[in-house]
């Protein structure tokens, strides 16, 4: 399977990716809320224990560690990086049951909850803490149950979950393309976080299409990726004009 996947990896014409402009990000958290709502992510009455709660897109607060007047802060939204490293992403490499596999047609790292056995190796392997574990069965207040999205199946207790790049929206976009007689491969679609961002800080699209906005921004001099030295090849890029942020992105190793 992986041999075949590798040959497609080089030739595939579609690689969905994301660019997040930290200079534009105000840290409002609309992306995280939209993600939570779109993907039926369960929450608990007390969300303060971050080792027990679930989030697919987390906001991190960065600061440069200096006192006023040099003090600087920034917010960094972190979805799944959908690592594009050859053969395997860190998580897909360790999954013993193929519940998480990278699709070599789109570059999306899939995670299928019904196949997951909850061993959590992938959570250990992921350098980005992009994965969460369901410690309890999801439970919503009665009034919220009617607001759940039928497009995304809720997960059960004992499985891992993570950002899917809203692949249910990709499937809908592909169906729209099909009925309009267009090529369903490489269609454009917008994940929920991108749609919700009020400052337009998040750009999404096909990194392999040289004319796409996302491919151009990924080559911007301000662009960097988190923990680039691990060679996980994230498909989520960040833009920042602040050097101290660039430095923190590699754990001060650069």
């Amino acid at each position, binding site marked *: 399977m992986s041999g075949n996947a590798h040959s497609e990896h080089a030739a595939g014409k579609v690689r969905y990716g994301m660019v997040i402009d930290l200079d534009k990000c105000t840290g409002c958290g609309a992306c995280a809320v939209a993600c939570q709502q779109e993907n039926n992510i369960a929450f608990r009455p007390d969300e303060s224990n971050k080792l027990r709660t679930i989030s697919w897109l987390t906001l991190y607060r960065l600061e440069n560690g200096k006192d006023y007047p040099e003090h600087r802060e920034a917010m960094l939204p972190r979805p799944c990086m959908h690592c594009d490293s050859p053969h395997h992403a860190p998580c897909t490499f360790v999954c013993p049951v193929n519940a998480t*596999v990278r*699709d*070599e*047609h*789109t570059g*999306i790292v*899939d*995670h*299928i*909850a*019904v*196949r997951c056995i909850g061993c959590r190796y992938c959570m250990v392997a992921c350098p980005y803490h992009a994965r969460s574990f369901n410690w309890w069965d999801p439970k919503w207040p009665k009034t919220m149950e009617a607001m759940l999205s039928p*497009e*995304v*199946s*809720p997960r059960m207790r004992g499985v891992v979950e993570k950002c*899917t790049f809203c*692949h*249910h929206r*990709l*499937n*809908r976009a*592909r*169906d*729209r*393309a*099909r*009925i309009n007689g267009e090529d*369903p491969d490489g269609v454009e679609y917008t994940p929920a976080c991108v749609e919700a961002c009020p400052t337009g800080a998040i750009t999404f699209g096909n990194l392999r299409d040289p004319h796409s906005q996302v491919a151009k921004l990924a080559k911007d001099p301000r662009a960097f990726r988190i923990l680039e030295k691990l060679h996980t090849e994230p498909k989520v890029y960040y833009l920042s004009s602040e050097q101290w942020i660039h430095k923190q992105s590699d754990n001060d190793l650069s």
Partner: protein
Amino acid sequence: MGEVKNSTSKKGLGLVFFLAGFVGALLVGWLVFPNLLYSSKQQPLNFLHSSHEDLSCEDCHFTREDGSYSGVPGVEMCAECHEEPMTESEDERILVEEYIQQEREIPWLVYARQPDNVYFSHVAHTEEQGIECVRCHRDVSAEDKMPVYKENRLTGYSKNTIKMVECEKCHAEKGASNSCHVCHK
């Protein structure tokens, strides 16, 4: 000598018991357990596709403009013709009196219903691509009674729903993607 003879007859008796137990286990596994596993349910009323031959399939089952599929029509569509009973049929009386007049949806038991985590796109599986409806659905054209709905007591799924292995096999044969997210949501 007598002792040896005794032990062979014991062996023969053992074989008989073993075979009896083996056959018994097979019968339980093949005949009794499948019946225990599935409960039988009746549809709320006996709808006949064969009585609606003046309509085309697409009048009730159609693809919407955004590429999604209409599936089983709602009672509103039935009411377009059956506002008042058109025949003496008992099933039609149930339809008109218990559902259309009370504006209730009919709780159909859908034989091909997939689990919640499955995403199936009808627009990607059309007759133009050589996939007939009867590849996954039963042939309804000459039916005079709806079949009994078999529900798996453990999973709650329909017995007749298409299994993942069949999806994967056909996708592999036709060169379609077998990626998880193509069929799961």
